C-alpha cells in the first residue's frame, strides 16, 4: 500500500467524479441518477482522504465523516421524493416527468 502514490488516488477520484457527473447528465432513470450523485460524493471522499494523508492534516478525514452523513441524508430525502414521484407518475424516467414548461 505504501507504494501507491497519492496522485493515483487523486486521479482515481477525478475519474470517478467524472463518471458520476456524466452519469447524472446522460442517464434518465432517477434511481440511477441518484446513484451517480452518490458516486460523485464518494469520489470526493476518496480525494479528501488521500489529501489528508498527503498533507498530514486531520481536516481531510473529518470532512469525510461529515460528507458521509450528508450523503446519507440526501439519499433518504431523494428516495422519499422518488417514492412520491412514482406514486403520482408511475415512472422513474425523468423525461416523462415534465409537466412544468414555459
Amino acid at each position: 500500500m505504501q507504494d501507491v502514490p497519492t496522485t493515483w488516488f487523486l486521479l482515481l477520484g477525478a475519474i470517478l467524479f467524472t463518471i458520476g457527473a456524466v452519469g447524472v447528465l446522460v442517464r434518465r432513470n432517477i434511481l440511477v441518477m441518484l446513484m451517480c450523485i452518490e458516486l460523485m460524493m464518494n469520489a470526493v471522499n476518496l480525494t479528501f482522504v488521500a489529501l489528508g494523508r498527503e498533507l498530514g492534516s486531520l481536516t481531510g478525514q473529518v470532512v469525510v465523516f461529515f460528507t458521509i452523513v450528508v450523503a446519507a441524508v440526501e439519499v433518504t430525502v431523494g428516495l422519499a421524493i422518488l417514492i412520491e414521484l412514482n406514486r403520482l407518475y408511475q415512472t422513474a424516467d425523468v423525461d416523462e416527468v415534465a409537466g412544468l414548461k414555459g
Partner: protein
Amino acid sequence: MRPQLPTLDLVPLYPLLVVTGWAVLVLLADLFVQHKRALGYLALTGVIVAAVVTVALWPGVPTSFQNMAISDGQALFFNLVFLVTGALGLLVAIEYLERKDLQRGEYYALLMFSLAGMIAMAAAEDLLIVFLGLEMMSVALYVLSGSNQRDMSSIEAAMKYFILGSFASAFFLYGIALTYAAAGSTNLAQIGSWLSGRGIPKDPVALTGLSLLLVGFGFKVALVPFHWWTPDVYQGAPTSVTAFMSVGAKAAGFATLTRVLYSAFSPTFTTDWVTVAAVLAAVTMTFGNLAALVQRDVKRLLGYSSIAHAGYVLVGIAAASPVGVRGMLFYILAYAFMTAGAFAVACAVERREQSTTTLADYAGLAQRSPLLAAAMLLFMLSLIGIPPLIGFWSKLFVFRAAVEANLAWLAVLGVLNSALSAYYYAGVVVQMYLREPGRSPAEEVAFRPWRSALAVAVFLAAAATVVLGLWPGAVVNLLMGV
C-alpha cells in the same frame, strides 16, 4: 489531571443556536399540538427571538468559534435578511397552507432548519461549515418544495430541485477538496493567506477548485448557465415555499460567495473572478429578462425575474470593492422585500382547488382586491427600479459601484436590462389595472386581506419597499458599519 477542553466561545453562534433549538422545539411541539396553525406562530416567535439576538450582537463579534465561524457585521446583516425572509415566509405559509389544506407541523420545523442552514452559511469561516450549512438549507428546501404531495407539479419541482441541487453540491464539495489540496486548509482566512503568500504564478489546482466552487454557487443562486431548474422549481413548489426560498436560498448563496471570493481568493485571484463574475452577471441578467418577457405564468415570470436579479446582485460582487459589497447587501435586502412580497401576493391570489397563477388570473385584481393590487403594483415598480422605491436605490448602488470599478459597460447593460424588464413587470400591472375581472365576484373565494397573516406579510413587505425607498439612508448607515 483533568482533561483540557478547548474553550468554546458560543456567543457568535447564538442566532444559529436559537433557530436550531427552536426548530427542534417546533418539531417536538408538533407531537402534542392539535392546531398546526399555532406551530406557525411558535416558529415565528423563534424567528423574532433570533432577530433580537442578532440585533443585540450588533455590530458584530470578532471572535470566532475555533476559527470556524464568524459573526461580523456582514454575517449579522445577512442574518437579518434571512430572518426577515423567514418571518415573511412563515406569515405567508400560515394562511396559504390552511387554504391549500396542507397545514402540517413539520413544514414550520423544516423552514426553521433551512433558516438555520442559511445562518450557518453566512457565518461560515470554513468551507466545511459552508458545505454543512448549504446542505442543511438545501435538504430542507427539497422537502418543502415537495410538501404538496397531491400536486404533481410540486413533486416534480422537488425532484428536479433535488437532483440538480445535489449535483451542484457534489461539484461544490469537489471544489472544496481541490482548494484544500492547493492550500492545505479549509479555513477561508488561511486559504487566503496561503494563496496570496505564493503570489504569481497562480496555482492551477486552486484555480480549478475556485471554478468548481463557482459552479456550485452558480447552481444555488441560479446564474446562467446553471439556472434551468429555477423556473420549474419556483413554479411547481407551493407558492409559500417559493416566497421563502427564492429569497433565502439566493441570499445565503451570495453571502457565502462573497466571503469565499473576498477572503479566500483575494487578492491573487481577484482579476480572474472579477472577469468571470462580470460576464456571468451580464449573461444572467440579460437572459433572465429576455426569458421572462414571454412568460404567461406569474410564478414562472417571477422565477425568471429572480434570475435576472441574481445578475444585478453579481454586478455588486464583480465591482470587488467595499462600495460594491455594500451595494450588493442593500440589493439583497431590497430583493427580499420585493420578491417575497410579490410571491406573497401570488399566494393570496391563488385558490384552493386550481393553481391560479397565470397572468390572466390577475385580470382586474385592482377591482377585486384594490389593496392587494396596490401592493403588487409597488413590488412590480420596485423590481423595475422606479424611484422612490427601494428597488431603485439598490440598482443605483450596484451600478454606481460598477462604474467606479471601471465596469461601466456592465452598468450600461444593467440599466438597459432594467428598461427591458419594465415590459413584463408592466404586463402584470396591465392585467391588474387595465383588464376587467374575468370572473364575477361571487366566484371568488372570499378573501379578506385585512384579517389574515398573509396580509400582514404583504403589508410589511410593501411598507418596507416604500419606507426604505424614501429613507434608504437608514440601511446605508447600517451598512457603513459592515
